[in-house]
């Protein structure tokens, strides 16, 4: 990803930051598992963990209602996230409900796959005319590097999850957070080698930057004070940010993007249609998105 670094100045106000116009609802992020997770990753940008119900699980009816809201708006695809979506007891039913209407992607830590669950996902994916994507997070190509973020044993379990999905023909996407600071091509090569050594052919890779949000702020030990203040609206490139074409829903409302569901100013309303408006880019995370041009979406 190219780096386009504006002149940053520290600011928490919305008065002097650029505003991201809203183009169209391409991606609807559905935080189906709320903040409930079986892991407590040290870099989790929503600080999810066991027993965490700050954002509650969304019911099957709630999800169906959100999808029904999004379809007349021309939504292109839906993403299911959390927390850990596979902790949701109705996730397979929810996918069954949604897949006839839009492509679906599930973002998972990969540690909760049973043979029956993998078989059910494969069957769903095979039957659907839209793609069912399973994205498994892998923070580094070795157990010590990965487990430092996600806990002992999580690397082997995630790798086993990727292998099970692959063996079932699902061709998962491995989402690699750039935790090591190395050249993206080198990191990519190491991850592919680790996956191939584990018997994963056709590894699909998506790299993502770290975000100074949630628990990651504590891990760093210092806040990230950057801001887009000072980047004039005229110099601002509105095509670089996903918040021009996505919204995230949780049990607590509609948020600008999947990254800011737990941050001040992230909530934009109760209904989707009332949130399809410009957003003031006042958060430090907006700097990371803008500088890297990243998108949480696939591809």
């Amino acid at each position, binding site marked *: 990803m190219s780096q386009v670094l504006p002149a940053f100045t520290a600011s928490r106000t919305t008065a002097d930051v650029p505003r991201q116009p809203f183009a169209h609802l391409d991606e609807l992020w559905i935080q189906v598992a709320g903040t409930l997770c079986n892991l407590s990753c040290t870099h989790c940008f929503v600080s999810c963990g066991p027993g965490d119900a700050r954002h509650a699980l969304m019911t099957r009816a709630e999800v169906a209602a959100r999808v029904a809201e999004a*379809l007349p708006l*021309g939504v*292109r695809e839906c993403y299911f996230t959390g927390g850990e979506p596979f902790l949701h007891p109705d996730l397979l039913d929810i996918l069954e409900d949604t897949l006839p209407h839009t492509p679906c992607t599930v973002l998972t830590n990969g540690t909760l796959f049973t043979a029956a669950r993998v078989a059910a996902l494969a069957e769903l994916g095979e039957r659907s005319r*839209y793609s069912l994507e399973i994205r498994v997070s892998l923070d580094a190509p070795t157990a010590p590097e990965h487990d430092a973020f996600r806990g002992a044993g999580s690397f082997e379990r995630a790798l086993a999850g990727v292998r099970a999905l692959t063996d079932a*023909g699902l061709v998962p996407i491995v989402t690699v957070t750039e935790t090591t600071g190395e050249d993206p091509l080198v990191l*990519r090569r190491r991850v592919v080698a680790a996956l191939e050594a584990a018997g994963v052919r056709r590894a*699909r890779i*998506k790299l993502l930057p770290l975000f100074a949000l949630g628990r990651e702020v504590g891990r760093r030990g210092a806040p990230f004070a950057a801001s887009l203040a000072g980047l004039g609206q005229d110099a601002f490139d509105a095509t670089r940010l996903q918040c021009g074409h996505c919204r995230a829903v949780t049990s607590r409302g509609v948020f600008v993007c999947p990254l800011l569901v737990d941050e001040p100013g992230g909530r934009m309303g109760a209904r989707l249609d009332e949130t399809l408006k410009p957003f003031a880019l006042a958060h430090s995370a907006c700097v990371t998105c803008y500088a890297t041009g990243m998108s949480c979406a*696939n591809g």
Partner: protein
Amino acid sequence: MAETGLRLALFGGVYSNHLALDATLADAARFGADATWCLGDVGGFGPHPDHSLERLRAAGVPTLRGNYDASIGEALDDCGCGYADPLDQQYAQRSYDYTLARTSSAHRAWLRALPEHARFTAGERRVLLTHGSPRRVNEFLWDSACSDAFLEWLCDAYEADVLACTHTGLHWHRALPSGRHVINVGAIGRPANDGRTDVWYAALELGADVTVTFRPVSYDHESLAREMEEEALPAEFVETIRTGWWTTCLENLPSRERRRGKF
């Protein structure tokens, strides 16, 4: 004999495959096309970019400006294909640097002047031709990654009853619930990741109904492969021409399309 409608031959993604271009134009004539359009991306991937440009211009084929054409025309730093993966970007860059260095300034001026979209009507139907999507030249419209709701919105927002695009390299057709049609015409520059060495384009007949047929085109792919080797283009690209399987730039394929391929 029933009255026939307007016959359109629509192809995209030439990718410097001048031999497939010749074969496609010949097949479009056999189809009886009233009009033939190229939806952009004349260069990239293949050898001797000027060869395809010369043939296209000599044949007078109306052509849209794809992202590759815009980049080559303006001598930009990269092809603007929209790959997010660093390895895909690296392969794309090798191909782009080769193509830019071997495209004449006269052809580059021609590419710069191409339109990005074309609109016309066929009977009551509004036809919109574009490269990636009507809203972004390098948007990938994959069959399995676009909901009906989204395609209906595109047709509404850009006032089209028949919308044709390319850019992904994979052909598909969707008859929408509203009765409108979206067609990705595929690419004639490289095979469709189906294990066949043929390439594909779209033959449309716009009459009382809309009929879309994808026509396979055989060409001397072995000659093209040898030209690519002589030009020291990546062996992975040559393998695709010889086998029909994509070997690079795979990372942004949705799972359904990726599963159909070998890699």
